[in-house]
């Protein structure tokens, strides 16, 4: 155990989920600090109260009684990025709005997660060939879960949230595979693009996103 890790805990034993269930059956609820830590965090993911377009309407519907996001511990939509764990980019990110979204992301404290909700937030969607819409928020901030749809149903958002919970539960609390917020050298701040004469400057953050290399055969 090195001193760099903030949690002086032994690494979780390599036991399978079936073995864990077997231990629970014998009255042992928690087998590692990692499990306790991830269990607590994954069941209280507080989203930022922030919407961009029609996907935000579905997000609001997911938080209402019919779909009830409170079942997953995410009903506490925080009005301030300082109190939020999850940025749901719900809708079209125009190039004029993109610096503000990155700024909100930078203002969120670690550990923080990002869900790109809907076709526009993933790739620009129907506006991909246009001049004023960002072709995916993953050009500037790291995205943990992508939810396709135009807009996705509230069930899809809940499914994306469950996927995020799975990811959080699988995180290590020490070692080189630890998430960003447990590695002191990794920064949670990302450069905010500037407004240029014809596009954002830079148009993408190369540390976060690279255009795919395509081999085209005629």
């Amino acid at each position, binding site marked *: 155990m090195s001193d760099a890790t903030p949690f002086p805990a032994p690494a979780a034993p390599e036991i399978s989920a079936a073995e864990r269930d077997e231990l629970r059956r014998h009255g042992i609820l928690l087998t590692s600090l990692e499990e306790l830590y991830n269990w607590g965090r994954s069941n209280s993911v507080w989203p930022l109260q922030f919407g961009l377009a029609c996907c935000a309407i579905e997000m609001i519907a997911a938080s209402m009684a019919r779909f009830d996001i409170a079942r997953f511990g995410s009903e506490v939509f925080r009005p301030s990025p300082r109190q939020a764990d999850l940025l749901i980019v719900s809708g079209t990110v125009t190039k004029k709005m993109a610096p503000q979204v990155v700024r909100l992301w930078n203002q969120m404290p670690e550990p923080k997660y990002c869900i790109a909700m809907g076709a526009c937030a993933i790739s620009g969607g129907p506006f991909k060939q246009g001049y004023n819409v960002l072709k995916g928020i993953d050009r500037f901030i790291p995205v943990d879960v992508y939810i396709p749809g135009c807009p996705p149903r509230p069930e899809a958002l809940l499914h994306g949230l469950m996927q995020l919970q799975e990811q959080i539960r699988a995180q290590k609390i020490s070692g080189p595979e630890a998430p960003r917020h447990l590695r002191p050298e990794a920064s949670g701040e990302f450069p905010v693009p500037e407004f240029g*004469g014809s596009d954002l400057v830079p*148009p993408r953050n190369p540390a976060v996103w690279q255009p795919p290399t395509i081999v085209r*055969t005629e």
Partner: protein
Amino acid sequence: METPEQIRERILARFPGAEVNVVTNPGPAAQHSLLLGAAHAVAIAVFLRDDPVLRLDTCSNVTGVDWLDREIVETVRKPLPTEPGSDPAAPARILEEKIKRLVPGHLEVVYHLYSVALKQGPVILRLRTFDRGANVTLPSLTPVWRACEFQEREVFDLYGVKFTGHPDLRRILMWDEFQHHPMRKDYVEPDDYEWEPTPHDAVLDKARRHYPATPAAPQEGAAP
């Protein structure tokens, strides 16, 4: 509701020197419009708003149109002089000459006016700039109809028409540092291409430029 021709007659009776033309719409909508000269546009707009028969108190829509420079080819036929010693009964020789003429383009702003008080409309006004380059100034109708304010800002943003008399002429959709007018037909968007599953037309051309083709792998069983 008066026809555009009747409105034009009354405008000309009120403003004798004004430049007013009726632009007919040959489509099934048949929404004919009035093309106003820039010099009298604000005075005519006040007249249309306050006239007791029309009372066009609402401007519901302002939009822009970009007309590019057009090249017109005209064919001119000239008879050639008959050469001496030729057969006088032969048909006269005619030289056809093609002359190319450049019609300069312009920007156009279209206003749709309604009367809420008299439940009638629309009356459509058009204003044209002199060209698409340096002379793109038009009088603003925001002092007449306050509803024009944001829409004239949008026309300024996307087409580059400069409205004189507008209280707050700034870009409204694009950021202030943006230098182009995206709805103009000769606008070229930033060259930022990403993979498309089924590129076609202009997108296919972009894909060819961004991802050069590699020779296809030899097919199984293909003839050498």
